[in-house]
């Protein structure tokens, strides 16, 4: 069992968990993910690592309630424990000194961008962070991001914080300052990553995105996580999750995310029934 050492509500449906997983914590690097299971009947849920503490032996994950399993996770308390916690999985981010880098996190995507920004800063990059969310109250981890970046640009759809608009507007704002950008990391909803990649492609700026397809095993055994990269099929769990944003077929990725929509709604409905019944 992997105990929850710390739980923090970051936004209405977003919770941060620090989990005791000493062996994973020894090995994990920025850009990698874990797969967790809450109980015997649970799904294997992939979650990106937001932070790790090798001395304490903990891994921090941030979970957004979007359906049945994530809702179950977010109900966990500091007395709870995960049944399974598998990792580190996936290929770590290629951390080197590129010069000036922009780390874009959209919504929940700010969590996985955090350790990447930190590592890029540690090796000498000039790090500009662009944080996007629908509104100010949904913006997470702003302070943490300020601590690991040289500059933070905020973009909210409703203008309640920072510039009004999308993360691409934040990116345009940085370019307008006359900065040369050597590389971009963009993590967030697929539509956002697509927009960023389309924005940077004509400018020839290297852009890395982190794909989050449906997964089962996370070891390359099932192929559920297929993504199309420059017309080649790759398994995101072992070949990624980070890929060259200019080669990713985002439309296919979005289409594949809707694979189990009907079933997800059924599971979700069950959760609501249980709630109304006053137990689960």
């Amino acid at each position, binding site marked *: 069992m992997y105990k929850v050492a710390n739980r923090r509500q970051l936004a209405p449906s977003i919770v941060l968990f620090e989990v005791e997983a000493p062996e994973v914590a020894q090995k994990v690097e920025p850009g990698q993910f874990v797969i967790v299971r809450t109980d015997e009947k649970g799904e294997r849920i992939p979650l990106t690592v937001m932070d790790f503490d090798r001395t304490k032996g903990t891994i921090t994950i941030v979970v957004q309630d979007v359906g049945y399993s994530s809702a179950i996770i977010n109900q966990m308390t500091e007395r709870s424990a995960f049944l399974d916690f*598998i990792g580190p999985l996936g290929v770590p981010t290629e951390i080197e000194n590129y010069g000036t880098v922009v780390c874009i996190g959209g919504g929940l995507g700010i969590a996985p961008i955090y350790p990447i920004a930190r590592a890029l800063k540690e090796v000498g990059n000039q790090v500009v962070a662009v944080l996007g969310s629908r509104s100010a109250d949904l913006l997470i981890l702003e302070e943490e991001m300020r601590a690991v970046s040289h500059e933070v640009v905020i973009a909210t759809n409703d203008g309640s914080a920072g510039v009004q608009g999308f993360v691409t507007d934040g990116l345009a704002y940085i370019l307008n300052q006359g900065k040369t950008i050597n590389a971009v990391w963009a993590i967030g909803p697929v539509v956002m990553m697509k927009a960023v990649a389309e924005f940077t492609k004509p400018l020839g700026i290297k852009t890395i995105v982190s794909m989050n397809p449906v997964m089962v095993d996370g070891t390359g055994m*099932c*192929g559920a996580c297929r993504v199309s990269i420059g017309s080649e099929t790759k398994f995101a769990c072992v070949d990624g999750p980070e890929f060259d944003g200019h080669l990713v077929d985002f439309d296919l990725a979005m289409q594949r995310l809707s694979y189990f929509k009907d079933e997800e709604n059924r599971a979700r409905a069950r959760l609501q029934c249980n709630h109304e019944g006053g137990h689960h």
Partner: protein
Amino acid sequence: MKEKATRHEMPCQDPVIRAHNFDEVALGYSKETAVAEAKRCLQCKKPLCVGSCPVEVLIPQFIKKITEEDFAGAGEVLKEKNSLPAVCGRVCPQESQCESKCVLGIKDEPVAIGRLERFAADYQPAMGKSKVSVPAPTGKRVAIIGAGPAGLTCAGDSAKKGHAVTVFEALHVAGGVLMYGIPQFRLPKEVVQSEIDNLKAMGVEIKVNTVVGKITSVDELMAEGYDAVFLGTGAGLPNFMGIPGENLNGVYSANEFLTRANLMKAYRFPEYATPIKVGKRVAVLGAGNVAMDGARTSLRLGAKEVYIVYRRSRTEMPARVEEVEHAEEEGVKLYLLTNPIKLNGDDRGWVKSMTCLRHELGEPDESGRRSPVPIPGSEFDLDVDTVIVAIGQGPNPLLTKSTPGLELNKRGNIVVDPETMETSKPGVFAGGDIVTGAATVILAMGAGKKAAAAIDKYLKNM
């Protein structure tokens, strides 16, 4: 004179009923039937059956115990050579191994060795755990990577020699394909679990959730003090056809489909949280055991029409005869000499049909089988809303890529000395599907056994 009895059929669930449930299809012999079948054995002085069993089960001896109604004794005899008899009794291709050599088979039908093995093995857990005596510890440590039949057999045999054994498994349960691939209705997971519990009772430590190559590596394990390592990571990399439309929604690899159904118990969704989606018309590409399992699982999940689509003819189908028979009885249809060339999607990105090309048999190819030749202009569309790709699995490179000094062949399988299963890396042995490519449970077990003997020798000479 022995009275002449014909081979006893195994009672099975009615095909019409079983095609809609996940309960075991074959029901097993009763005591009376088992004894009667056992009495058919001629107890040959030089039994040919034993020689064609990869783990050399003492076949006449265990059958004799059944005739004496010493069922627990029969189980003991099985366990001497085979650490997973309840599994083998269910999934081994006996028709091409032990039973193919049975002398009775020349004029009549062979003794139903597999069914008797299953009977004797099942009798044991019902009667409580058999006592296994473990010798004094040797002080040597063996690490086993992968808890499939190869790894588990190597673990059991190494523990019996007194070595301290730890098995590292990537998934959240041990068992390999026995747990994630082969369906409940053919191999109940409780059967596999009780075999694994027996190993644990012998002192084998099993660490699940441990992907070697990520959280640790072979070199690190050796540095931590493991004296020998056995690699039994299987053939877990699903092949796809490489035709247009394979990433459409509704297209699964057999591994994904079966893992959802078996390992994650999606057939009990939403009680179990993992979903699985099966349409009305399912095409399964391929004709091995994996394909049959995919087809039969689809039926049980509610598909109305299920087709096996295979480019060769019936005689070349690699699945066990019994599996094909069971599938056809349940209503699976065969589209032989047919190969898909394209999957077509609807405007929402779901597969809606499959363009196929008919084939005819031509000259024999390198494998000695007559090769399928496409018939020009024979394209036709088959309406389907689910496609399961079951055209084979390759070696998963995750472990081998992270282990320097390991010689691989051009397909990515580990190269070993066939006598000792030793790899090019000192102290590291390998066996099962990762060496041979996708094969059988019993061959994997045979390899695990051979490796355990070689590891024991290696450790004694250290």
